[in-house]
C-alpha cells in the first residue's frame, strides 16, 4: 500500500483527509503512483500533471525519504521505504506569500 500526502487544496478537491492509500500495480514508480492516484480520484486529473503532456505542474514538488524526486524520471522506481508503506510520498505546493 502506497501512502500519499496531498496538499490542502487537492485534499479538498478529492474530499479526503491528509493521507491517502493506493494500490499500485507492477513496478512502483512515480508515474504508476500518480496513475493510481488519478484513477482513484479522477477529480485530481490535470491538477498535479498537465492533462496532455503529463508533465509535473511547475509549482508542485514530489518529496520522499528526505529526497526531492521532482526532477527524476517518472519511471524510476520509488524508494523501498515508500514501496513498503513505511514512508509517505509527499506532493507539495511550492511556497508562496500573499
Amino acid at each position: 500500500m502506497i501512502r500519499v500526502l496531498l496538499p490542502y487544496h487537492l485534499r479538498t478537491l478529492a474530499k479526503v483527509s491528509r493521507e491517502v492509500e493506493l494500490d499500485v500495480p507492477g513496478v512502483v514508480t512515480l508515474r504508476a503512483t500518480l496513475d493510481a492516484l488519478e484513477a482513484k480520484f479522477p477529480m485530481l486529473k490535470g491538477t498535479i500533471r498537465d492533462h496532455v503532456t503529463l508533465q509535473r505542474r511547475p509549482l508542485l514538488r514530489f518529496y520522499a525519504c528526505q529526497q526531492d524526486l521532482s526532477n527524476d524520471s517518472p519511471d524510476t522506481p520509488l524508494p523501498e521505504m515508500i514501496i513498503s508503506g513505511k514512508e509517505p510520498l509527499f506532493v507539495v505546493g511550492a511556497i508562496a506569500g500573499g
Partner: protein
Amino acid sequence: MSGVRVLVGTRKGAFVLTSDGQRKNWAVDGPFFGGWEMYHLKGSPVDPNRIYASQSSGWFGQLIQRSSDGGKTWEQVDGKFVYEGTPGPHKWYDGTPHPWEFKRIWHIEPSLTDPEVVYAGAEDAALFRTDDGGNSWQELAGLRQHGSGVLWQPGAGGLGLHTIILDPTNPKRIYIAISAAGAFRTEDGGETWKPINRGLVSKYELPDPTAEVGHCIHHMAIHPSRPDVLFMQKHWDVTRSDNSGDHWRKVSGNLPTDFGFPIEVHAHEPETIYVVPIKSDSEHYPPDAKLRVYRSRSGGEEWEPLTKGLPQSNCYVNILRDAMAVDTLDECGVYFGTTGGQVYCSADSGDNWTPIVRDLPAVLSVEVQTLA
C-alpha cells in the same frame, strides 16, 4: 417575489450575494473554493439554478465547477481544454513566434437556449464549447486558426479571450474579443471568423494604429433588443458600432479619461451605457482618487458622473473588465466590484450606490441573475 443573485469571482474564492427586489438587505454566502482564483461565474439564462464557474490556480491548473441548485452546492466537471491539432504560433512579447499554451479560462458564457451548452474563453486565446454541461470541451478552432492568429500578441495580462456575446436573434452569430488581438465575429456558429476592428485607432499601442488585428479591447456589451449595436471599452477609447462591428466610432466625448475596463448597457434603455474611467494604462486607479461611474443616456459622447455613495477621496481601486453587470428588474440595478474587495449596487440605474460588501478579496468578476 422577485430577487437577485450576484455571483462574485475573486482572487481567493467565489461569493454569492442574494437579495429581494428591494436590493437593500443582502445575504452573503461563501467563500466557495476558498483560496482559488475564481475568474468568472455565470448562470444559465434558461435555468438560473445552473451556474458554471472557472476555478484556477498557478499551482493546480484549471478546473470547472457546476452548480444545479443556484450555487448552494457544486460539482467538479471536466477541466481539460485541449487545442485542436498542433497549435501553431502566435506572436510573443519579443515578436518571435510562440506556441499556444493553455493557461486558464477567463470567461464563461452559457447558451441562451440550452443549459447544457456553454462557451468558454481561454488564455492563450481560444474559444471552447461544451454540449454536455461541462463534462467535455471542444475547441472552436476556426477562430484560433484564422489567418491573423500568427499576429496575435499578448497584452501585459496575457493573450486572453475575455468577451463572448451570443446574439439572441441569431444563434449562429457570436462576437468575441481578445486582448490584444481585437474583436471577431462568426456568422456560422464558430466555424469561420472575421476580424471586426475597422474604425478602431490604437496610436499608443500599435505601430499601425488602424491595423486589422492587434487592438487591446477590454470589454464589449450589447443590449439584447439591438444585437447589431455594440459598445466597446478599448484600452483607450470608448467606441460603438451600429453595424455588428463592421465599423466603430469613438464616443468617449466628455469622459475625464477614456481608459477603463468594463462597459455595460442598461437593461431597459438600449442607449444608456456605463463605464468606469481609470486614470491611465500606467496608473490603474480612478482619476483624482474619486470613484465615479459614468453614464451616457445617448449611447456615448455625453456622459454624467454618478458619485452618490461612492468614495470621492483617497480611492485607488480598479474595476476589472468582467466586474460590472446589470439586473433586469423594473428599476434596473447596476453592480460592480473593485480590486479593493467592495461590491457596489445601485438599485436605481446608477443614481445612488451602496456597498453590498466591503472587504472581499480583489474582485475579478461580477454577474447578476434576476430571479422570478
